[in-house]
């Protein structure tokens, strides 16, 4: 390890820009002649639009144009596409209703886009938007996830009977049924995975621009994947060829998944810029974010685990209803299927698994991937179920896990739900976490807390996830409508500094540092000499962006491949300069030398020679030093580990405090341990947020959002969190050149069940065995009250 190379805890290069307020976010970009767009949104969850009268609004000061769905339809603007086709059990395709950027005749959730007002200032556009008269015929709304597919529920789409988007399954049903028939005991559980609102620090924004002279369009947008937006918007919605459309995602203030998708506003401003010949900017305010950013999670599940008399898992059966909201967002359909059911083996050697997932439309904001995406839902279900099984079987919960973990020597391990785990060491992450958390000493802490009037509990979760998304051929066979490789181009400049163009996108993850460390390590130079370029489709090679903890495992691997080519070519140049054979050239610490001699040439001189090829093997080798590579992974990567949480519940108020949290994660090769730790901390905060604080609440009748601002939507705060004890115990990914697995999502995936298992452990002396997420004070208090009354009645 060098001071700045792989494994070094280097401070993040990008932080100076972020911390001093010098970042350039989409809203910071202003183009000459720019107009401002305000979207008129539906106040109703479900209504027919009988008429829209824009005449008064159009006459208001500063208004340049008002467009409705009818105007976009006239221009043949297409439907926002869904990126993943899921098939029903009977092999028929899912229901795929249209998703126009502005709705022509019917609104389907509070916040749906009805019209756009474009004016000289944002305030003028707002004034005019208020003057638009929309005649709505309000319809009954389908809101509740579990009730949406029941007979008599209001219908969101004609083409989705009973609101079912698809009814899908995975696994061997017959094998599962056979195993259940022989089971000694079956543990059953019903769970809700609470709906979340992503809340990136920077609200979404989009700025469209059109150049009349060239016919070129540019879209600046808050995106995690500018090329994907260019592809989806260009090819499907606006029918613009890619060479005439540039998409730029500049600094982006967090995404957590919510900025993956192609959103209506991007198409609206780009299209409107073309119509008006002036740039058009839209910026969401926070209230708008709550009703227009894709939400996360929202599952209702029933699961059953069959065991033999020793607690060995024989089979698992799961039935889940997942809410996709009113429209199919870009990756909405793969989240509750291939990112969820495939993870139901967890870290356990369960031989047979069968999962059924029914996905329903409702009159709510679309639901899509949110940090973890499918994997937190699977982990929560499994880890709650295993704890319950341990209680019912009267086997210690750690012991039950130990008995069922996939053995160390079983890798590669083929699960019954499609995935093949390449590496892992679940025994060690479990044992280290038990030790770091002083699991054995817990009872004395419980007793001490009791003296203070607090109920203390401890909870555990042993988890796995699949990330490093994704092998293109595999996902293609499962319905993905895109490849999921990654690209990199490395440009060595004549004086030896390096620019790396990556197809991934950094919106807080620290790629500008981590990727530079990989280059610095290979080429033996300081990271200051390496610049990471991302986010501009006119500067970078076609890449798929950042989500699913893929950037290092897939994007980093593409960089390694491109670096290999740079080193290979450099060796040939060195061999020429040193008058040696290429096979004798060694490269170390930035210097090429002839093996066994003191003859050497530094990397900088190779670069200069490549661009000033006076003494150069010009007949054999092209000048210049620039290489690119695409990397398509052979498999997913499988980070995993063990999270242990300790809580104290105040029985008088129901308030739960997280007092201790221990995480031991296996993330493969670590490039920058400080960034890894930061990613785990952030993920844990989000996981604890889901477990204790966050929930999107809709009024079940009207479909109005009741948690539509920070007055009601509880984000976790620093004071809610203890000082985390975080460690990694890493086994290498066997199929990518770095050995890295990914760390972006582990915190949010492993932690929620650890928290809830701890709360249940705390409340268990009262006879309480279940609490829903988020375990709010009121929920806990109610359970405590009921338990108290039950006891009094005994």
């Amino acid at each position, binding site marked *: 390890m060098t001071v700045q190379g792989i494994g070094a805890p280097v401070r993040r290069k990008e932080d100076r820009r972020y911390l001093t307020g010098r970042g350039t976010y989409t809203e910071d970009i202003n183009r000459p002649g720019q107009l401002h767009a305000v979207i008129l949104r539906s106040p109703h969850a479900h209504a027919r639009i009988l008429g829209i009268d824009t005449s008064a609004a159009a006459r208001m000061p500063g208004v340049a144009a008002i467009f409705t769905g009818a105007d976009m339809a006239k221009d043949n603007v297409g439907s926002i596409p869904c990126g993943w086709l899921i098939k029903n059990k009977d092999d028929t395709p899912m229901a795929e209703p249209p998703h126009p950027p502005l709705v022509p005749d019917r609104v389907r959730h509070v916040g749906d886009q009805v019209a756009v007002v474009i004016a000289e200032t944002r*305030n003028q556009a*707002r*004034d005019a938007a*208020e003057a638009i008269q929309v005649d709505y015929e309000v319809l009954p709304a389908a809101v509740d996830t579990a009730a949406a597919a029941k007979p008599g529920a209001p219908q969101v789409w004609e083409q989705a009977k009973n609101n079912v988007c698809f009814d899908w399954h995975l696994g061997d049903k017959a094998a599962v049924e056979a195993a259940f028939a022989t089971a000694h005991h079956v543990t059953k559980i019903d769970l809700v995975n609470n709906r979340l609102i992503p809340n990136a620090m920077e609200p979404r924004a989009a700025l469209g621009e059109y150049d009349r002279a060239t016919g070129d369009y540019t879209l600046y947008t808050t995106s995690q994947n500018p090329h994907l937006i260019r592809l989806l918007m260009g090819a499907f919605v606006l029918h613009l060829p890619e060479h005439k459309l540039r998409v730029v995602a500049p600094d982006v203030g967090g995404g957590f998944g919510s900025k993956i998708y192609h959103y209506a506003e991007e198409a609206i401003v780009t299209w409107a810029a073309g119509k008006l010949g002036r740039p058009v900017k839209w910026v969401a305010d926070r*209230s708008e974010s709550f009703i227009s950013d894709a939400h996360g999670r929202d599952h209702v599940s029933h699961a059953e685990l069959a065991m033999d008399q020793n607690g060995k898992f024989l089979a698992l059966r799961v039935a889940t209803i997942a809410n996709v909201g009113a429209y199919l967002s870009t990756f909405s359909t793969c989240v509750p299927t291939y990112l969820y059911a495939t993870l139901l083996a967890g870290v356990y050697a369960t031989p047979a698994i069968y999962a059924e997932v029914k996905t329903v439309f409702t009159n709510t904001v679309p639901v899509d991937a949110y940090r973890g995406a499918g994997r937190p839902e699977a982990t929560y279900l499994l880890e709650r179920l295993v704890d319950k099984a341990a209680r019912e079987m009267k086997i210690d919960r750690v012991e039950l896990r130990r008995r069922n973990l996939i053995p160390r020597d079983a890798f590669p391990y083929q699960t019954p739900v499609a995935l093949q785990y390449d590496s892992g060491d679940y025994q060690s992450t479990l044992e280290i976490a038990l030790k770091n958390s002083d699991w054995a000493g817990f009872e004395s802490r419980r007793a001490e807390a009791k003296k203070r009037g607090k109920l203390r509990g401890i909870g555990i979760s042993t988890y796995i996830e699949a990330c490093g998304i994704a092998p293109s051929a595999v996902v293609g066979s499962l319905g993905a409508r895109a490849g999921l490789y990654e690209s990199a181009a490395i440009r060595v400049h004549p004086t030896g500094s390096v620019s790396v163009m990556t197809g991934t996108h950094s919106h807080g993850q620290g790629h500008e540092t981590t990727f530079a460390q990989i280059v610095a390590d290979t080429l033996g130079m300081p990271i200051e000499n390496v610049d990471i370029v991302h986010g501009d489709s006119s500067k970078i090679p076609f890449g798929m962006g950042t989500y699913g903890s893929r950037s290092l495992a897939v994007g980093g691997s593409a960089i390694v491949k491109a670096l290999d080519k740079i080193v290979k070519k450099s060796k040939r140049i060195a061999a020429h300069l040193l008058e040696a054979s290429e096979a004798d050239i060694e490269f170390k610490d930035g210097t090429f030398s002839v093996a066994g001699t003191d003859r050497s040439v530094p990397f900088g001189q190779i670069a200069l020679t490549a661009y000033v090829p006076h003494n150069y093997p010009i007949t054999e080798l092209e000048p210049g030093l620039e290489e690119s590579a695409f990397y398509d992974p052979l498999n997913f990567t499988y980070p995993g580990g063990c999270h242990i949480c300790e809580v104290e519940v105040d029985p*008088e*108020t129901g308030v739960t405090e997280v007092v201790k949290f221990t995480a031991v994660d296996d993330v493969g090769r670590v490039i920058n341990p400080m960034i890894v730790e930061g990613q785990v901390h952030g993920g844990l905060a989000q996981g604890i947020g889901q477990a204790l*604080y966050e929930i999107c*609440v809709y009024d079940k009748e009207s479909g109005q959002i*009741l*948690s539509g601002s*920070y*007055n*009601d*939507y*509880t*984000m976790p705060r620093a004071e809610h969190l203890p000082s985390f004890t975080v460690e990694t115990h890493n086994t290498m990914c066997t199929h990518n050149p770095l050995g890295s697995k990914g760390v972006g999502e582990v915190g949010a995936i492993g932690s929620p069940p650890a928290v809830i298992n701890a709360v249940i452990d705390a409340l268990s002396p009262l006879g309480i065995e279940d609490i829903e997420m988020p375990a*709010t*004070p*009121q929920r806990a*208090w*109610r359970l405590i009250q009921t338990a108290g009354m039950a006891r009094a009645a005994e």
Partner: protein
Amino acid sequence: MYSFAYHRPVSAAEAEALAAKAGEARFLAGGMTLLPAMKLRLAQPTDLIDLARLGDLRGIKVSGSEVRIGAMTLHAAVAASAEVKRAIPALAHCAGVIGDPQVRNRGTLGGSLANNDPAADYPAAVLGLNATVHTSRRTIPADSFFRGLFETALEPGELITAVSFPIPERAAYEKFRHPASRYAVVGVFVARTGGGVRVAVTGAGPCAFRATQLEQALAKNFSPDALKGIKISADGLNSDIHAAADYRAHLIGVMARRAVAAIA
């Protein structure tokens, strides 16, 4: 935000005169409530009368029997005041648990009382300590100041200038914070004076109110045990997604016991 005329008077009289002339005037203090309401287009005053230059409205004076705080005094100033901490520590504590540091460094006592948010903290202190609200026109006793949801005894254009708090023997404020907004789901202010015991509750009803049931029990026996058996009715209490009325009723009891325990 809609457009409005902005004024910056230098005296209370000028402020009142401006308010009388305007179509729909609003005084601007810390702006922590008013400005978000304007940005969300929920409030649309024609005239905004900024009180920032009314120096007389700012400051803390402690005499033998009372603490007098100017309407424009920041929550942070009250929370940090050594004099307030000495005279009525519970009042400094109450100011110190309002919102977050940013809010406490903008928000003012007068703004909080004039706004009379059902979940605001100061009203509990004003009512619990039997304070007097001084306005540009009169003095209003705490018991008749808070009228209902966002409703006070203030007349249009009437300006709060200061509040005087009689110094109690002992007082305590216990707050159950709203998990999201940090306002009070329930806040209970208990004060013991020569004249008796006062218990004021905020967060639970349309505006702060006195819990006479608890006051009577504590008058007989000032100890947490005196409150143990008392069941507080949930009738008329607030209900929302975080706390239903019965939970709030329960929290009144818990917060009251904790406040009493702190000073009994």
